């Protein structure tokens, strides 16, 4: 088994109101005069053992889908997956 490390971000889907993001947008508009679109989310870093990178990908995708995010309102993205 090989050890892999993955980084995952989770944020609310487009269309689900993100009040934290809206609050930051309002402040940015006031302070910097910038028009922005902000999504606030979570970050997870996982270390896992798997037979190869595909296996690792599958395992982590499943974990992300079942535990780290709620597919009804959130979407996840694996931003990094590499051998440790």
């Amino acid at each position: 088994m090989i050890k892999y490390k993955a980084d995952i971000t989770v944020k609310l889907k487009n269309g689900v109101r993100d009040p934290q993001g809206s609050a930051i947008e309002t402040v940015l508009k006031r302070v910097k005069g910038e028009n922005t679109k902000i999504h606030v989310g979570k970050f997870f870093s996982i270390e896992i053992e798997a037979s190869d990178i595909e296996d690792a990908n599958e395992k982590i995708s499943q974990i992300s889908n079942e535990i780290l995010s709620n597919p009804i309102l959130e979407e996840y993205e694996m931003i990094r997956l590499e051998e440790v």
Partner: protein
Amino acid sequence: MKAGVIVFPGTNCDRDTLEACQEFGWEAEYIWHDDIFEQSSMHASTLRGEADLQYEQRTASVRKSGEGEKQSLKHSHSVFQAFVPHAGIHPSPQKGEGAGASNNLNKYDVIFLPGGFSYGDYVRSGALAKFSPVIEYLKEYIEQKRGFVVGICNGFQILCEAGLLPGALTHNEGLKFICADSELILNEGKREEERRKSPNLNFNNSFVYPSPLGGEGDFQRERKPANVRKSGEGYCNQPSHPCFTPHTSRFTLPIAHAEGRYVADEKTIQELKEKEMIFLTYKENPNGSVENIAGLYDKERRIIGMMPHPERAFFKELGNEDGKIIFDFIEKRCV
């Protein structure tokens, strides 16, 4: 009638719920989420003496450490280890071993998932609790149509996470933890209109609760006239009351949540409306819930989930007894 109250690490409305059930005339006991074999379901009365002692210790240690939530989460686990000596080291029942355990749940007419912060609300509220062994057995209990399942606050969040109720609950629109009295509308739907006309419910000044033992033991609870009551309108099932409509009633219950905004896609919302699954709505939306949703049925009408806390508005010493309307509602669906 017998009620079970499921306790997860971090659950904090377990005792309020248990006491409310007992006051309402039901038998009630705790069910520890990780250990639902015979020895875990100790009778509430055995539990209560120890609970008092443990509660004292818990509050004392929380005060001392000042760590609040974290400490109480840790401690509530050890509280249950005290009740169930092997809770920590007992191998969790695996899927498929369920026969005995689900029989164990089958002795309950109603099962509560009380409020609180299961697993400290880590990741998302209810996200970790849905993997507790008791949830598998709860699903069997529901499939067998054995009894009624009630999720209050965090319990509602867990039921949604576990896919037993549609949709999901997320952060309040205002991002604040809201702790307030909230006026609610109980909409039982036209289908329930007939039930309301049943002889058990009279529209004078008192509810008649059928005795859990049946027969002669029927007892009545006095309702305070509306002008004496301080919080909310309450008990407006009387046709003379201004807010009375044939199949809805208004009353007030406390809410206490940070993640209570109900969200679902349009198709689901459409279905909720068509099947009259929305049984409880806010009069004034406190958290941004779609369609002012405060509580839901499942399709089969065997499960309800609600954000407000009926068990916190049960005893007259607390100034509001509207929670009894919900307990009455539950009882009518169990008998």
